[in-house]
């Protein structure tokens, strides 16, 4: 069936069963492949996108739950989010596969808490696994982006 989704400011019609997870609609139907498939059960965070500004796991969110919800993906940050500049400055990515999800989780954090503490970062970012172990650079880049935003 046809469902309307609002993704990155555009309303898009997609043909998919209502119980299809958003991730597979984004990736296979809309060809927006920045959001990654890592676990399929909301355990790793590689598929993180925003739903009305809140970070959600798109692998476990059926599209039928998203009517009228504003979805933002990594593509929607347009490459000019201060976090993305900080990620490059710190050479955060190694394999890079988790980083879209990490950045989306961090972007939601900064939107709510412009100057996060270490405890805030732990609380917001511990749902996102990085097997390459870029955690300390992720933390440094979030702090750097927070500082640059206020400057």
């Amino acid at each position, binding site marked *: 069936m046809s469902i309307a989704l609002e993704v990155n400011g555009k309303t898009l019609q997609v043909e998919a069963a209502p119980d299809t997870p958003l991730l597979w609609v984004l990736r*296979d139907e809309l060809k927006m*492949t920045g959001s*990654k498939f890592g676990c399929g059960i909301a355990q790793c965070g590689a598929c993180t996108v925003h739903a009305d500004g809140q970070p959600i796991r798109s692998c476990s969110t059926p599209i039928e739950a998203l009517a009228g919800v504003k979805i933002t993906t990594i593509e929607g940050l347009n490459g000019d989010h201060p976090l993305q500049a900080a990620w*490059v400055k710190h050479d955060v990515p190694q*394999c890079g596969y988790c*980083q879209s999800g990490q950045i989306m989780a961090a972007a939601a954090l900064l939107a709510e808490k412009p100057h996060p503490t270490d405890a805030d970062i732990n609380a917001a970012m511990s749902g996102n696994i990085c097997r390459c*172990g870029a955690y300390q650079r*992720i933390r440094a880049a979030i702090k750097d982006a927070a500082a640059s935003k206020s400057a």
Partner: protein
Amino acid sequence: MNKPVTLSQNGTTRRDLVVGASLVGGALLVGCSPTDILNLGAKKIDFGAFGPFIKIGADGAVTVISKHIEFGQGTHAGLAAIVAEELDADWSRVLVEQSPANTKVYQNLLFGAQGTGGSTAIANSWMQLRQAGASARAMFVQAASSKWRVPAAEITVKDSVVSHASGKSASFADLLKDAAKVAPPTAPTLKDPKTFTLIGTQKVRRKDSLAKSTGTAIYTQDIHMPGMLTAMVAHAPRFGAKVASYDDTEAKKVKGVVKIFKIATGVAVVAENTWAAKQGRDALKVTWDESKAEKRSTPEIAQSYAKIASARSDGTPFEARGDATTAFGGPLHTATFDFPYLAHASMEPMNCVAQVDGQKVKLTYGCQGPTMDQVNVAKAIGVLPGAIEIETLTTGGSFGRRATVDGDYVVECARIAKKIGGFTPVKLVWTREDDMLGGHYRPMVHHNLAIKVGVDGYPAAWRHTVVTQSIMKGSPMPQGKFEAAAVEGVLGSPYLKAASVVDGQVILAESPVSVLWWRSVGGTHTALVMEHTIDQLAAKAGKDPVDYRRALYTKADAKRHLAVMDLATQKAGWGKPLPAGTARGIAVHESFGSVVAQVAEVSIIDGVPRVGRVVCAVDCGIAIAPDQIAAQMEGAVTYGLSAALFGEITLKDGLVQQHNFDTYRVLRQNEAPTVETYIVPSGANPSGIGEPGTPPIAPAVANALLALTGKPTTSLPFVKA
């Protein structure tokens, strides 16, 4: 299965040629090099004037061709820097491109086959790429010399600009056409490493950070091609089981499912998209023939290993020195260690895109071992190995998982694509569960030690027995007299060198559970065994663990071990007071040509070891990309710590108990240590960096826990589920 290669007398190949995996390291046909055979069917690569590793565009931008895959380890930055240094290229305008698969042109000089692993990418490319860069530089210098009629010796190159004291200057772009006509020198002059301006500096940064921070880097999972189908496979729940029969009535009803058929590894469901493939696959009802399947549970396997080690009846010596018959009398320090199966659990589960149309085959994926995969796919679907075109993409980690000796998921994908035919792109997608249940684990390992301590408190005689499954069996790698991968780190240890009697044996056990190298291979267990034993011996001798090691390293003339230990302990403040409930532990381990020392600060919170700060000192020869060396230390510590704390794949009646990250716990942001990296200056050729940071962390933590609690560690993980 492994029919030998047959060649007709004029050297042309039979169409039905099958390459045996043994050919990589073993017997060969007269007049035919192993490379020639592995490369059979390969298209000639038409590279430009600057050879197979360098392309220079009309705008003067330099592209370095990497024969090695980039999957996080930063090798593309390091390889490009080697070329840029000798070429004196403008680093900001250097790009990196992935080479095609070609065993002849792009082989790993340490493997004799194309592939990335064993932390060899930089080490094997070092002279090759320096020469390539220097050769291209000489061509520009010669072109300018002819054009300006000045001696070549008076010409300098900096940041892709060629200059002469007379004031004449030209960019690579200006000189490109003339330089391309110059014959490459056979023995170009290389720089004195003391004059390097790029290598070893913080200027050497990753080239892929922006793409990987914007979701635009393309992984296998992201591939979409016109007409592409997506496949998933129902695999056997027990290792060694085969399909007996299947019922696809319900699976066929799933919208988007195109085809369902049996393959060697299970039942494949081919669909229009990923979600349909998954729903179809999950709706299959498969009956398995489990007559040859592994049905044991982990405790049973562990007990059998311990028994084999105690009996010691079937061992192969890996080191035998001195008179072992009399050396082990009287009281001994004895210990056993048990290690579980480990999944690599890279972020991107295994996947591959294959297109097959008769003899025409193309694979598009994160390919770690092009030659091995070509050989395995060639055998499976009956084509020439070199004719298999491979487009290698970056991949969401590997840690060894994507280089398999049996072709595994790549062969599975090729078989499905052959059945579909018509060069239709077929993307094989493994879910996390497929990946975690898919074997190729770091094998279970048991160590049994008996050490006679001399009157001086140091080991005089060392008896060591290792029981594990073979990683190398069935692999195209040289097998050797014993399973070296199981004992590396014991073999060659300075502690063994310092002992006068050594009696080391390795015994191989069998199981249908597939096993594989896992970041740092033998070091994943041998480092804990050696380093934790040394701390226990030091405690028995009433000596500080660092002083105790220093005496042994001095006796064994292990200068690099001494240097990294001194640097790490100095930076960590070894011996200085810590808050109550926190202790330091040290470990030093050599692997892949590099030596790493780590000092970990550990406390115990709610019964779980908490690692706060880790200080690393590393000697990896000439440091090319210091920031990426630090990144690899950070990553290796996290990866090794994750496994040491939580990592374990267990079997119950042959069934894997961990299916996803909910039960296979890995380290997360709130548990991550802060890692500091210090590099020992060196003039030696570069050695490995992707793996050597992994082995020391588990023993560093175990040694800190020993200091905190007095209790030795006898098995991993520290935190049992």
